[in-house]
């Protein structure tokens, strides 16, 4: 376990700019943009549906609290997620390029010879290199998001306080906490579906002697093209699509709701979907076949690393 911990620490250190700097910079940018826009714009003028004119966030919050008090915490939580979404745009790129580079770079800079001079098995190395982008990276991103949302909530609380609105309503901590945990659950589900594609990147990283990006992208592309041209079918493309997130389509049939207000959106996006997702995920043969394929790719990557010098 100690060895695994050391490997994880090393991977984080190696990918510091990916795993830590990228979300930290985007989160800081988000906060700066929010603060600047609030200070510069100062007041907003919105005509609400009911014809009431709202001058700023404070008044808007006061109005919302007065008209639909049960919607307030959901609305605020959703707003915080909306603001911090910028950080997550980078996340797929971080995973993609970390996995693609991890076993490639150590061969290219020959540091693999140093790693191999240590009493660490190749399977431990490869699993750590899979574990960090898939589990540690999202936790770091979530951590940064949590910190950002807390900073934003404090800032908004102060703003609303000065504007004479219900400042305490800007801290729906219980609901925020729920959203953090549940989104992690959603991520894990998506990750399980994506595992064969992610493990493919790891395998490419283990065998490509150059241009790993092309190796990662071209073979699936060629497969899709060949199938399309000769068989006039698109099952490979569909399979890839499903594992990249298309599986969520099945959710639509399960969740039939009338959406009325932020609370319903919150429940649909964040809350209720999780049990449905889990039901779909763990009962899907397609998902389990993907896991088996991922295990095969990972095994192949370990075997490649054993032979790599």
């Amino acid at each position, binding site marked *: 376990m*100690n060895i695994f911990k050391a490997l994880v620490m090393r991977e984080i250190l190696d990918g510091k700019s990916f795993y830590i700097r990228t979300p930290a910079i985007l989160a800081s940018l988000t906060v700066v943009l929010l603060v600047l826009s609030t200070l510069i714009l100062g007041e907003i003028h919105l005509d609400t549906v009911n014809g009431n004119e709202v001058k700023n966030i404070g008044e808007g919050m006061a109005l919302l609290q007065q008209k639909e008090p049960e919607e307030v915490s959901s609305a605020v939580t959703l707003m915080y997620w909306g603001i911090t979404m910028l950080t997550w745009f980078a996340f797929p790129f971080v995973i993609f390029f970390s996995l693609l580079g991890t076993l490639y770079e150590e061969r290219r800079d020959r540091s693999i010879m140093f790693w191999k001079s*240590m*009493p660490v098995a190749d399977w431990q190395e490869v699993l750590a290199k899979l574990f960090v982008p898939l589990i540690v990276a999202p936790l770091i991103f979530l951590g940064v998001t949590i910190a950002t949302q807390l900073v934003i909530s404090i800032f908004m609380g102060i703003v609303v306080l000065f504007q004479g609105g219900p400042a305490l309503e800007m801290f729906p901590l219980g609901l925020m906490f729920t959203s953090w945990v549940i989104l992690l659950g959603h991520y894990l589900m998506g990750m399980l579906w994506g595992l064969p594609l992610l493990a493919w990147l790891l395998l490419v990283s283990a065998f490509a002697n150059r241009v790993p990006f092309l190796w990662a992208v071209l073979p699936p592309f060629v497969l899709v093209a060949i199938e399309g041209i000769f068989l006039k079918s698109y099952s490979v493309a569909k399979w890839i699509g499903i594992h990249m997130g298309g599986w969520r389509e099945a959710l639509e049939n399960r969740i039939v709701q009338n959406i009325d207000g932020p609370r319903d959106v919150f429940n649909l996006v964040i809350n209720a979907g999780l049990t449905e997702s889990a039901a779909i995920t763990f009962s899907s043969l397609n998902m389990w076949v993907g896991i088996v394929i991922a295990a095969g790719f990972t095994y192949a990557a370990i075997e490649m690393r054993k032979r790599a010098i």
Partner: protein
Amino acid sequence: MTDSMTNSPIIEAKGLSKSFGDFHALKSVDFSMPMGRIVGVIGANGAGKTTMLNAILGLTSYDGSLNVLGYDPATERDALMKDVCFIADIATLPKWMKVSEVLDYVEAVHPKFDRAKAMDFLSRTNVPIDKKVRALSKGMTVQVHLAVVMAIEAKLLVLDEPTLGLDIIFRKRFYQSLLEEYFDEDRTVIITTHQVEEVEHILTDVMFIKDGNIVLEADMEDLTQQFIEVMVEKGKEEEALALKPISHGASFGKETCVYKNIDRETLAKLGETRRLGLADIFVATMTGDGQ
């Protein structure tokens, strides 16, 4: 330590071979190396030295049987590396790590690493601990690697061209510290290098490799006694040639002859004798006359 333990081989190879397509890098070689030796593996480029070392270190697959410290390197590299250290090439330390982070990592994964020893070694150099490896000079990078290796209580140390590209002062110091601070009777060191003159005084054994075969395996002391060069005195040339030198030439206007396995007293009558250097023995052996 008992004699039997000291003398039991730490490496035993039988029919060890390795091919890359049609190219036979190692052609079914047998050898063994005992504990407490410094073995020089000497051969031309592409002779099979690195392939042999890679097999010993579990870095490559092979045919035949190979036992290193009781392990099968091909399947047990990770366990083997608790007792074996190697410096494969000077540029292998991860460039993106700080020196202190390299030490942190090794400390975490290697049960036989003594950080204080490594720090002590580094304190005698001017390597900055908080700099990244990328920022270090070639010589400093080797010093860091050497500090790591010296601080590991290993039974076998393999050095493949460890001083390539380093200046002569550093090379001298490198081998000196290897001999004085690291080597003892419970350890074996294997060195390959092109600069034979620099290592010959520390070697206890040599192995010559040519075209994937081991052409000579000998105790250094015995070997240097076998080869004697004579500066033949004027008038004794015919007598000298009659003893069948393995090579002869001329220097300072005198005939010089090299002999193998002819006793020194006999040769002393012909003229001034001297032992042959390892590099000359290597050349004499490789050119075929000495075999």
